[in-house]
């Protein structure tokens, strides 16, 4: 279980407990948090679960797979700290993670 904070582009913040094994994308979708779509269902093939991982956390997460960087090319306003939230698996180690959402996903 990890406490994850999702911050919408307008500053609205949602903190929820997400079970281990789910992805950070699923944590948002299952808790009806706006701003993360996850259109393809977590298949790393749509770039609509794009988030910015806040400083300090980005380097602690597991590294990106090749395909994720390719998909991020197609995300809305990608930055250095961009991730696809479907590719971040929830474990006890990421308790306290904070992610910011882009202005929009598409």
């Amino acid at each position, binding site marked *: 279980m990890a406490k994850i904070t999702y911050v919408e582009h307008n500053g609205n913040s949602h903190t929820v407990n997400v079970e281990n094994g789910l992805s950070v994308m699923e944590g948002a979708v299952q808790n009806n948090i706006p701003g993360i779509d996850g259109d393809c269902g977590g*298949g790393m*093939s749509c770039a609509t679960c794009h988030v910015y991982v806040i400083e300090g956390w980005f380097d602690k997460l597991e590294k990106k797979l090749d395909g994720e960087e390719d998909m991020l*090319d197609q995300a809305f*306003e990608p930055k250095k700290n961009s991730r696809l939230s479907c590719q971040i698996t929830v474990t006890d180690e990421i308790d306290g993670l904070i992610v910011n959402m882009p*202005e929009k996903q598409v």
Partner: protein
Amino acid sequence: MIKTDALIIGAGPTGLFTAHQLKIIGLDCEIVDNLDKAGGQCIELYPDKPIYDIPAIPECTGEELTKNLLDQLKPFNINFHLGERVDELKKNDGNWEVKTNKGKTFLTPNVIIAGGVGSFEPRKFSPKECEQFEDKSIFYSIKNKKIFEGKTVSIFGGGDSALDWAVELSKNSKVNLIHRRDEFRGAQATLDKVHELQKSGKIELFTKYQLKTVKGNGSLESIDIEHENKEIKNLKSDYVLGFFGLIMQLGPIANWGLNLNKKTVEVDTEKFETNQKGIYAIGDICNYPGKLKLILSGFHEGALAARACFKLARPNEKYRFEFTTSSKTIKERLGVKSD
């Protein structure tokens, strides 16, 4: 005006199998899809990725699944309207009149929306000021490459489309290729060619840059690109091309008066009908208690929606359930011999 028993919107796996179900029970149908080929997400998002949960098929790729579904439709004569998007829908004396963006009109008692997560549209540049130049100086696909001859073209993207067009247009235009990182995901051979052309001065390459703004009065004059480290460069540009892949958007369907839940359409589980009589939603786009976004669920939903179509298309006939193994009528429709 094209008259048909049922219009299927979406040529993904669900739409394709539903066409089969309609034809089996003796109804005709037409299929419209915004993509230029059949297969939907299977062909556009994961043609090479294996799928493991299609009943009786232990493993197949999105491309193989699409091919098999098309093979299954071979006995039937079905019209595909590819590269067309449905735009308008209105009532016409008990039928639905549906118009596409290419000006085709369908008249039908049954509209089956098998639209997945929406229609695929090109992903666009984020600066708002790009909109006013769209289809004049800024393009997301190329219809006529002649207009770029002798001009300066700035191409954005890191995939095959961006690389291919950079190489192609460099023959007759001055080309800037701009990408947000150093790595390109396009084919290595094309990338090698780009590097060659860069050395000979035909292509100017800018990596770790993204589009910041576009400038021009009426027609485009120049663009500002911003480096990861915030440095800004101004490039003279007559045209800008963006190749960032496709996104899925519900599009005009959102304005059809259907009960929507986020990006999905609410249906019943008997006919998969929406709140509008004669309009059905099946596959990923529909929503009901317990809905699973699986291809197999789309097949089931399509089979039931097809039977519901029968009632409206043949109001004076009674639908009789038959098996393909034993029905003489169905075998005739399939063009196979009866025992």
